[in-house]
């Protein structure tokens, strides 16, 4: 072995030994799953670091951006704090998600974890309504289940509400029920298509691009149209959902909200 290589190995070994002696063992992410950095100040510090280091891809409020997904409605690839820490620290291999700056300490990464968790937490609130009554209203007087599924039961013409409690708070649910036209995601717009023979097909906007449209009509039939094969088409951005909240009594509305807010992923 050349002397230079021998010297390199020896020096490296010495340096490694020195590091072992002088550097306190850094806690592994997995060991810090129940980490300590969860105070309001930690969350604010985490928010600041997120805005600086992550906001360009994920949006300044983590609501999603040009490159990065929305981080306020659960995470795509992790289910634990340690997993989230690992992705923020090291990135996702072979993808555009790179790790946070090496200059950021583990402590500050945990603060980002806490900040993101704070965006995904549903507040523990005492609601006036009765969720059991609300479940009966959902299938009964409210007629919600004719369009919405919960855990595989119900209609297809509205959003699946099996985990709606994780993404909408009680005030938002009340607004959804009373003023459904106020905030209609483009997926739930309506496309009204006039074919060459003048007949009309109308349905929920499942997909639309420069060249084509895909819709579901009121009978839950799926349709696909090339835009250049139809006479015309029109986007209707109003909701197809009735203002159910206005047809219920105040206490019934509370019950329905309590039920909807209880719909979460079942704890494993």
């Amino acid at each position, binding site marked *: 072995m050349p002397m230079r290589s021998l010297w390199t190995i020896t020096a490296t070994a010495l340096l490694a030994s020195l590091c072992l002696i002088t550097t306190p063992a850094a806690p592994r992410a997995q060991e810090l799953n129940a980490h300590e950095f969860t105070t309001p100040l930690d969350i604010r510090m985490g928010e600041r670091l997120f805005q*600086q280091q992550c906001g360009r891809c994920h949006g300044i409020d983590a609501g999603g951006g040009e*490159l990065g997904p929305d981080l306020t409605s659960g995470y795509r690839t992790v289910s634990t704090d340690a997993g989230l820490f690992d992705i923020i620290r090291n990135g996702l291999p072979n993808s555009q998600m790179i790790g946070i*700056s090496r200059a950021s300490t583990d402590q500050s990464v945990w603060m980002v974890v806490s900040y993101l968790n704070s965006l995904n937490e549903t507040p523990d609130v005492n609601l006036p309504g009765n969720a059991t009554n609300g479940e009966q209203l959902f299938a009964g007087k409210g007629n919600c289940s004719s369009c919405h599924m919960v855990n595989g039961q119900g209609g297809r013409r509205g959003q699946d509400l099996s985990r709606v409690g994780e993404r909408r708070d009680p005030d938002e649910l009340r607004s959804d029920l009373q003023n459904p036209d106020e905030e209609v995601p483009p997926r739930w717009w309506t496309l009204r298509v006039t074919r060459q023979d003048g007949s009309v097909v109308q349905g929920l906007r499942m997909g639309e*691009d420069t060249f084509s449209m895909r819709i579901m009509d009121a009978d839950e039939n799926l349709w696909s149209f090339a835009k250049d094969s139809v006479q015309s088409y029109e986007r209707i951005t109003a909701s197809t959902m009735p203002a159910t909240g206005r047809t219920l009594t105040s206490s019934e509305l509370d019950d329905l909200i309590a039920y909807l807010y209880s719909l979460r992923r079942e704890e494993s």
Partner: protein
Amino acid sequence: MQRLTIGLALLIAAVPVHGQESESTPGSTPLFSPVTWERLVNAADEPENWLMYSGTLDSQHYSGLDQVHNRNVGELELKWAYQIPQLDRSETVPVVVDGVMFITEAPSNVVAVDAETGLQYWRYNHELPDDLRICCGRNNRGVAILGDTLYMSTLDAHLVAIDARSGNLLWNAETADHRAGYSKTAAPLIVKDQVVTGIAGGEFGIRGFVDSYDAASGDRAWRAWTIPGPDHPDNQTWAGDSWRTGGSASWITGSYDPDLDLVYWGTGNPGPDWNGDVRLGDNLYSDSALALNGTTGNMEWYFQFTPWDVHDWDAIQVPILADLEIDGEMRKLMMWANRNAFYYTLDRETGEFLVGKPFAKQTWAEGLDSNGRPIRAPNKLPTPEGNIVSPPVGGGTNWFSPAYSPRTELFYVQAYDGEDIFYKRDEDYVEGDQFTGGGSQRPLPIENYQSAIRAIDPRTGDIRWEYEIQPRSTAGIMTTAGDLVFSGSVDGFFYALDAVSGEELWHINLGRRIHTAPMSYSVNGKQHVTVAAGNVVYTFALNE
């Protein structure tokens, strides 16, 4: 610097063997011949090749091939696909030389494949450190070639020279310290025997520059700072010491006029991006077009599109050069659709402002004055609470290539009519950390906004036609002698329009976002059209 110098000069002096005969039988002649400077200057004369990022030194992104034209484009069919082994969306524009295609990949790799089959000759994987500072993805947009050598930027802010026949590394030059936030993503530009290259890092408080390196040795020939130092009067356009961390990166490939010996290069946003309070002044030469002497790097003129930018509207667009008659006089022009949503025609000899009009939705300016300087609208600056402004951070357009057709004399740009809420934050500079001073957020779901390809008359700035893209596009554009405009969309459609009328002629769903520009070449007499979608490079040709 690691340097394994080869006798590049000998190769340049060798008798050039131009593109293979168009009617030759496959396998009858060897592929690839050295690319001399003369070949690059006259690249338009060999349309069977695509010899640089923008096709030609004037960056028109125009192919002289016309075998595929506006009457038969509907017969295009897939010939081959090359799968990039990384998941990142590709931003590459391949280079093709005499039947060999060079494709760059994330993070900083390049492969050579047979341009007729997509099958690999060799691969070069660049070793990267694990402490990269990059703002916006592990991107690489392409290579430059001179002689037998490829030149590529790498994410650790190096410029590497690679043997085009074997993939072996020839030299590896560090252009800046990646730990301070510098990186490199753009294809270099060959100018005579030099490799001209920019730098990225505008979100990390770098000080930008454009560099030129000796192609044979990798030694730096000149550096043009994009922020003047304190010995220059224009340094006064930066408050205090803000010039030291003022960004003004140069992260897209420029153009070159051999007759004027001028290199044209765009510069990026001043930093911190959204908080201009700490850098009051025009912040020269951020958000500008620079005209640099091709031999010395000295600045001949500049034109600043967005003085004191606080919305991150980089002037990082490929400058398109063309000569046109205006008011009875032939003018050497530069065409530029800027991220700030205004289109400009400049005189490229002098930098004189000739034409300027909005080409996409904008609410930030009441117009341009007679010198092309924007007249700002009130109350359109970022605030702590957020302020809605058009165009959004991504701009009325962005870095992806526009195109020009000498046949239609129209300029084609991917325009976006959007908006963002702009926020301002206080932020301290820490070397190697992002230094942006705020951020942005869309006020509405993205489906509420859309793109359009707009064909602009460079003499007037008027929009001649537009083709709406639903939902939107971040793809570059290629025009051809077959009077076609090729481009793509974020949902993976690749399409061809009639260059004269804007009529849609052909489309195919490639399944993932097209985030780069198409290019075209010919092998064995057959025209091919290539584009990357997602992490796959697709190549099309007419049905046999």
